[in-house]
């Protein structure tokens, strides 16, 4: 089996993105419950191979909660065939099946994308998107957003702090204050963007903010073809079962 996460450093961000998209869509196409263990096994293998298990497990928490929600709620509210009855609560088979399918796909896709994409910096991913043909306007937008995210989030939290230190209200009455904060941030952002544009122009910005990209290597191509084969195999297996 082509396990692309075996070489977390060598594989380019572009190949990682392609592999992640191909496999995620392959997983999403699965409709039979029998295949779910296979998906989960691949996802888990990817997670193990990524070498950042603790980090990725922590980031998987949200998806795990959501999956647990589907697993718990769908059997309660949906289906015709009674599976079990515990006092006033009835569990239905169809709901349980749908819940297991959705939860399995969700966890497998998120685990796999984390395993593939979390070793690469977000900036490299955006550069990879650009190399894959995403319009440079969008890639530049993503670059600058990533660059200034921390700073603007810091500004907003300092603003919240200033509000609190001056006895700012809580609850509904805080909503207009929050709007003031957003408005003043927007005005500051606008003023800053004029400086930013001057700086970009003075250093010769014409098209694109990032370095030229190297061509895809043999390993990249191998992983992309491996992932495509795996995705088609999953699809074919699923439909033939």
């Amino acid at each position, binding site marked *: 089996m082509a396990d692309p996460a075996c070489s977390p450093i060598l594989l380019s961000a572009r190949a990682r993105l392609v592999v992640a*998209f191909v496999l*995620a869509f392959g*997983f*999403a*196409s699965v409709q039979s419950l029998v295949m779910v263990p296979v998906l989960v096994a691949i996802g888990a293998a990817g997670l193990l191979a990524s070498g950042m298990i603790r980090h990725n497990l922590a*980031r998987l928490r949200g*998806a795990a909660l959501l999956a647990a929600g589907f697993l718990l*709620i*769908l059997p309660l*509210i949906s*289906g*015709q065939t009674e599976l079990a009855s515990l006092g006033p609560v009835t569990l239905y088979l*169809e709901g349980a099946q*749908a819940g297991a*399918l*959705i*939860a*399995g*796909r*969700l966890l*497998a*896709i998120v685990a796999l*994308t*984390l395993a593939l*994409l979390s070793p690469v910096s*977000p900036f490299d*991913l955006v550069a990879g*998107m650009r190399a894959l043909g995403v*319009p440079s*306007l*969008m890639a*530049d*937008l*993503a670059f*600058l*957003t*990533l660059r*200034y995210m921390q700073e*603007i*989030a810091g500004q907003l*939290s300092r603003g919240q702090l200033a509000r609190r230190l001056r006895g700012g209200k*809580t609850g509904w009455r*805080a*909503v207009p204050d*929050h*709007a003031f*904060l*957003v*408005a*003043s*941030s*927007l*005005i500051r*952002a*606008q003023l800053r963007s*004029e400086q*930013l*544009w001057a700086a970009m122009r003075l250093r010769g910005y*014409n*098209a694109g903010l990032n370095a030229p990209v190297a061509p895809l290597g043999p390993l990249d191509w191998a992983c992309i073809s491996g992932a495509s084969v795996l995705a088609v195999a999953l699809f074919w297996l699923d439909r033939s079962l």
Partner: protein
Amino acid sequence: MHLPDGLMPVEMALAGYAGSGLLATISLSRIKRLPDPSSVVPRAAMLTTVFFAASLVAIPVPPTTVHLMLAGLLGVMLGWFAIPAILVGLFLQAVLFGHGGLTTLGLNGLILGLPALLAFGLWRSAGRRWPDLVALCAGSGAVVLALVIFAALVLAGMPAALDARAEQAALWVFMLAHLPLVLAEGLIVLVVLRVLRRTAPQLLPHG
């Protein structure tokens, strides 16, 4: 209000990408008609960052805390730039925080992008005449439209074996739970646009 990976059938996810791709193509071609498109990139990027950062701040709206969606405000402030900004934001959210998902990025783009364009259209056509009313409608309306698209997609995408009545009931609960967000967003957009009109009208190019 993001559709997670694994929930929607693959055909719908692909259709979502097609829809978002179309929206992006239209807005990019509109942007290219501007006199100097690249000069607007820094401004759009800075504003996008503010929206992105502001949507991460939890604001207390009893009985819960909510994260703002800000699709309406985004549409009013950025116009056609709202679509690329939303797609970029969704991609970064999926990669950085695991919100939403890779396969559902296209669908999520529609859930936020169409309301943003609605707000943009509302503001451009009537913002000058009834600014406060339009701001309120743009803010709350964007959330309502996003909820409706979200619910419609979920209904269309769920396995047929499921009991439609129970599903609808669950969706109603979901929509009611978002009522505070509808009100809070309307109020926020109203106040923000009022402040901008009063102190920095040059920030509102249309309306």
